[in-house]
């Protein structure tokens, strides 16, 4: 029996359901129930002639699963391919294939989560936020009345252009190439992208400060610079921004009590 091929319609169905991957996130199963929901239409196709096989396929995806939400698309594609292959095997040869599915889910989920977290959460997310803020500042200086909308559009576009591409590519490539799709990722210079984005974020933050503080009066500019310098020092020491704001509030109260006008 040959393994079924995933149609575009089926891929769209699985992809749409993957948008609900974390809809019932819980500490015990994490994304497990969401992944089971996403895979269900494909499992029904793969195991259509075997109700027992379908039942056990559903059961094996209802347990623990966790990875980055975008990496989940690649893992789902690979799992779809492996399920199709397992269903096409004679019953006696299935045990190893099913064991491989469990191992792939656990191994790939954990290993991809590290690099996807670093890239999407730890580099692209801050870079795209600064892109949005700089777009608003640029639009404001150019006299646009729609500066806020440029900010929202720039922030969303800068994040989602790579994110949507990674989701679609991951699902389709995983469904066609299986494990090889994950191996192909290893050749990408992701670490240098991460480093480049983080450096760009630092430069963008400095530029945003110049653009925001530049038009202020002398005293206000000095206050902004001093606040930034103190904030940088405290952040370097590991004090969270919200704690710093609390300290500033207490400082302001003390200054007011001492008769100074903060």
């Amino acid at each position, binding site marked *: 029996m040959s393994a079924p091929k995933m149609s575009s319609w089926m891929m769209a169905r699985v992809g749409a359901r993957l948008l*609900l991957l*974390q809809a019932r*996130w*819980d*500490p*015990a*199963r994490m994304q497990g*129930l969401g992944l*089971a*929901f996403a895979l*269900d239409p494909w499992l*029904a196709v793969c195991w259509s002639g075997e109700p027992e096989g379908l*039942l056990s396929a559903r*059961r094996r995806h*209802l*347990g623990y699963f*966790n990875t980055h939400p*975008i990496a989940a698309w690649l893992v789902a594609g690979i799992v779809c391919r492996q399920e199709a292959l397992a269903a096409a095997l004679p019953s006696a040869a299935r045990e190893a294939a099913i064991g491989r599915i469990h191992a792939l889910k656990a191994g790939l989920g954990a290993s991809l989560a590290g690099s996807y977290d670093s890239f999407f*959460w730890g580099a692209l*997310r*801050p870079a795209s936020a*600064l892109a*949005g*803020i700089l777009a608003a500042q640029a639009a404001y200086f150019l006299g646009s009345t729609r*500066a*806020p*909308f440029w*900010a*929202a559009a720039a*922030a*969303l576009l800068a*994040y*989602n252009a790579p994110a949507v591409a990674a989701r679609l590519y991951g699902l389709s490539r995983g469904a066609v190439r299986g494990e090889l799709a994950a191996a192909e990722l290893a050749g990408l210079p992701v670490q240098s992208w991460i480093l480049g984005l983080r*450096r760009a974020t*630092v430069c963008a*933050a400095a530029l945003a*400060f110049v653009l*925001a503080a530049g038009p202020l009066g002398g005293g206000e500019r000095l206050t*902004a610079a001093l*606040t*930034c*310098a103190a*904030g*940088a020092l405290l*952040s*370097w020491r590991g004090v969270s*921004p*919200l704690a*710093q*704001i*609390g300290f*500033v*509030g*207490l*400082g*302001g*109260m003390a*200054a*007011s*009590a001492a008769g100074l006008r903060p």
Partner: protein
Amino acid sequence: MTAIAGLLALAVLELDAVLVAQTLASRPLVVGILLGALQGRALAGAMFGAVFELLGLCDLPVGGRLPWSAPVAAGTATVLAVGGTSFPLCFAGGVAAGALHSRAEAFERKRRSASGDALAERAAAGGRALGLALGASVIAHAAMTFALAGSVAVLTAFLDRRCWMDAPELLRAGAALAASSAPWIGLSGVAVWGLRRA
């Protein structure tokens, strides 16, 4: 009426943060701008959105970590600002809503865990059990966000109208200084965060 529309929009947009899609349509900058525009004050929304975006940028939602909700903070602060609440209280209300929201979400997650086994048993049999449970979870979360942000907004607006002008000067001065320093602290925090990792 516009405040209710704003809170409803916040409840829907916030779903994107964890439960649905993660397109970052829930990022504070976008939430602030959209809610502000919906209520005719896009610039105020952009300001609070940018501030909370910078403050929340270094808290990564990795694994099961549940940082304070910057989107809820930005949305609540924007709704308050549109309603005419004073700037420091908008900021404080936003921070309170963001912190409370993460507590409520942690509670929600524990509750989901408790019913996970029973749901998995029903889902294994096929049918619509899992889809319905996912839908119910999304609706419950949106309702929680709406109720929580709304409660904090109402309480903060009440404080602003009834007590804030009579509050001790030192309290008002401290709150004003804290709120006005937030953008600079956020900006320096992001720069340092990037420097340490670059």
